[in-house]
């Protein structure tokens, strides 16, 4: 597809279960971002990938969160032992290159609900 694709669009899970969220960026985009959007809290940066460089994991809230990007394309965000406070919309975005344009192309997000 032409845009950033995220799956699943909705995920309901029980507390303590692991979840995986997938992001397929726009073809040719080397930069990939994960953000978390909670109600009334804006967008919280989680992690950033740029090409083959080591990712910037500075935004991950705990060691239950991890992400990988295979082959410089598809990325998976994994949340282990989910907690109710993990409930949010997880947004993925990509851009053509790192640095200075600031135009990120966002997916529609994965809404996670932890019961």
């Amino acid at each position, binding site marked *: 597809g032409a845009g950033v694709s995220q799956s699943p669009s909705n995920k309901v899970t029980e507390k303590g279960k692991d979840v995986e969220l997938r992001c397929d960026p726009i073809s040719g985009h080397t*930069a990939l971002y994960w953000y978390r959007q909670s109600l009334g809290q804006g967008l919280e*940066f989680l992690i950033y990938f740029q090409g083959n460089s080591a990712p*910037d994991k500075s935004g991950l809230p705990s060691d239950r969160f991890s992400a990988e990007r295979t082959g410089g394309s598809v990325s998976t965000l994994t949340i282990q032992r989910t907690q109710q406070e993990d409930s949010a919309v997880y947004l993925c975005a990509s851009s053509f290159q790192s*640095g200075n344009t*600031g135009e990120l192309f*966002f997916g529609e997000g994965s809404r996670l609900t932890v019961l």
Partner: protein
Amino acid sequence: AQTVTQSQPEMSVQEAETVTLSCTYDTSENNYYLFWYKQPPSRQMILVIRQEAYKQQNATENRFSVNFQKAAKSFSLKISDSQLGDTAMYFCAFMKSSLPYSTLTFGKGTMLLVSP
């Protein structure tokens, strides 16, 4: 660290009227970029307008324009001739212009409702 503040959680405007959304930010950087992103209900977030801090001229994109006051660290968005399709959450965002990369810092958003 940078912070972005949007003090208006919600705003309403009637079709064809003009509305201004406020944004202030705090940074010690001299070179940076500012953005307004729009997130319509149940749709993807898209870039509305972008401003480079080194430019004194305010950016404009059709009905959208900004009032950038660098000394006051203020970056407001004006929407002229509001349309029903402008109903959305609007996010102000900041990015340092430093290499090798930068991430965006977002405000908490302003929900704009345009009514007939």
